[in-house]
């Protein structure tokens, strides 16, 4: 009878130990090298670098802004050379720190003139909605070096 009891206990105990193991990550074959390559690719890709808002901002920036401000915001877009006042680099952290979120919003919405800057920067408040302008600002803030 004792034997039956111990067997019973063992069965229950194994049942528990099995259950504990399920908490470990599933042991599916991982290829370490492949994983390293994937990680290297991912760290360069926009998915790892930017969050959702920044990614949307990036798309808007590339579409509307990059012709003058440059793809990296360094003020070197192809059209920047035709402007009377060349756009300031948005990657310049000293310059950008003095621009609060509100100021940036004002410049994008109402143009450069609204902040005593060049009238060559147009106003976007009729083209972009307030959320899109927020996305743009969150992306512009990642350009700083």
């Amino acid at each position, binding site marked *: 009878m004792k034997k039956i009891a111990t067997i019973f206990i063992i069965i*229950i105990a194994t049942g528990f130990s099995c259950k504990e193991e399920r908490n470990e*990550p599933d042991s*599916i074959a991982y290829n370490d090298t492949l994983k390293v390559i994937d990680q290297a690719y991912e760290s360069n890709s926009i998915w790892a670098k930017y969050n959702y808002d920044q990614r949307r901002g990036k798309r808007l920036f590339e579409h*509307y802004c990059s012709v003058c401000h440059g793809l990296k915001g360094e003020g070197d877009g192809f059209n920047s050379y*035709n402007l009377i006042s060349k756009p300031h680099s948005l990657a310049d952290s000293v310059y950008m720190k003095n621009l609060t979120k509100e100021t940036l919003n004002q410049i994008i919405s109402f143009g450069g003139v609204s902040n005593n800057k060049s009238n060559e920067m147009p106003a976007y408040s009729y083209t972009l909605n307030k959320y899109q302008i927020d996305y743009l600002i969150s992306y512009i803030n990642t350009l700083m070096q």
Partner: protein
Amino acid sequence: MTNIKKIYAVTSILFLAILAISPLKNYFQEWRSIQKNFNSSLESYPQKIKPVDVGLKQIWVQELGKIDRCTSCHIGISDSKLVTAPEPFSTHPRVFHDPEKFGCTICHQGQGLATNYNDIHEVSEFWDKPLLPDKYIEATCGRCHIGQNLKDTPNLNYGKEIVEDFNCVGCHDLPGIKKKFVPGLDGIGSKVTGRQWMVNWLKNPNKVLSKAKMPNFLFSDDEVNTLTDFLMSFKSFTGSVQPDSIPKIYEQRKEEDDFINLGKTKFREARCISCHTVEGKGGHLAVDLIKVASKANATWIYNYIRNPKKFQPGVAMPQFGFSSEEAAAITAYIESEFVDWDLPDEDKSDYKHPADFFAKGLALFNKYNCSGCHNLSANGIAVNKGPELELIGSKNLYQIEWGSSSITHTLYNFLENKIKSPRIFGDQTRMPVFNLSGKQVEAITTYLLSLQKIDFPFNYLQIAPPPPVYFPKGEVAKIINKYSCLQCHKIEGTGGTIAPDLSIVGSQLQLNWIKKYFEVPYSLRPIVEERMPKLFISNKEIETLLNYFNTELLDDSISFIEETLFNNSNIDKGKSLYSQKYGCQSCHILDGKGGYVGPPLDNIGDRLKPEWIFSWLINPQKYKPETIEPRTGMPEKEAIDITRYLMSLKKEK
């Protein structure tokens, strides 16, 4: 007490103990401590936030049959005060659907009911749809939004575009993808200069032309030779069209510099490099011409320049209005310049066809489903497609053949690796290697993942209406087809996106200007690489087109603006608004000053109609949603002044 009673007592106690363990386990669940952590960290936030009741939270979306418990830990998902909170408490970015109404797994996939970190976030072979990595997230947008090409799913749209571009439908069934034009192979034996070119091409098309669309089938040398023999035996063109013989002047003068230079001039004048690449420069719409003289023989090139649609009905190239002498001169120019000097001379003496090359070649042609892309009129051609991909996004993991690869078993890993290196899951598979970048592979995977079974109510489906089909009639249709206008221009929803939409061109442009433009087309936008080619179009055809533009391609809301509106306005005020208030010169060139994002405005008064300038100034996005020109919200009075000013900019006053 008897023994049996003792055992009974012991087992009862054991059972009780076991029963007590499960509530204990529940009590020590991870999410409880996460919720408690959250409650104890509330003071660190600037705003006052209510503590959360400790307990399992879930979003139940009855219609979709989804129960998602993610909110047990992701507490702040719909609380905008928690934007800056650390994960997992922060607010969900503002998306198009309210997570409270749609749940989480409808977009992110994963096991919504699970309450354990690993079950939810890690890949498991027991769950076919694990949490989708961010890079593929647009796939789930495409589940409901079918064919809509939303502007916030660029990755998904790009994937679809590539799938169409590489003609994946040649071998795989895919919903809503049109088959692309691929040159037919009839008469290939009369077109190609010799065996050597074909052998090189079949071995690795990318080695011959770096931007070749045709993938590499990884043929063995034997297979390459058999297929070459097979293809080179096709000497007659589709519908037994006979090529015109090349004019005598070609043979007489093909080595004279004058003649070659005439060809070169015409080649430049017609702006062939708008579509064709030559020496690394030029467009990517058509094939790279750099080695074309080593590929096709002079007679074929001459005939093709005269009328490309003769051999390849449906080809994008327009039929230029060259005379036979001009076409011969261009042929001479091509023959003298675009030669592959590395191609070894053909050694004709040694090679003999094996006796059974035709049967073997046909078998190979069928095995690799060459007819999926290329037309070939021969008996015994069979369709031998690859797997259907209409519901590939719902494929179960156990249905996938993994071969000996050691890749984490998920559908997205399978698709990505299959596209990147198709033979990785076994040597017997037939799929060729495409020349794709990492970004393109990612986009195609996203698109394929979006092709899922519809396992939700149909009222959630958003299907794009079929695009309007534009049917010009009569003479106009012939001209539009002859010059392939719709390859670049769009008219009423049909056509390419390279050049401006012509749907309302009659309301936009002055007819005199269009007439001159046909004669000497120039580039309006210097930054656009593709230029309007000079088509050598006849005057009669121009008249027909102009008449058509002016009667059919109109926008009534523009045409009804009366011209007298602009009489009573102030040019000087318009000028100062142009340069001072709106800073138009940052994008438009005028008198040599200004940017070149938009078209130059010199002599704009000769080109555009005033009603159009006015309408465009008021709301550019109405006519061209993706334009960079911002809507300025200018009052009508100012728009009238600027229009008057711009209309005053004429060559002849």
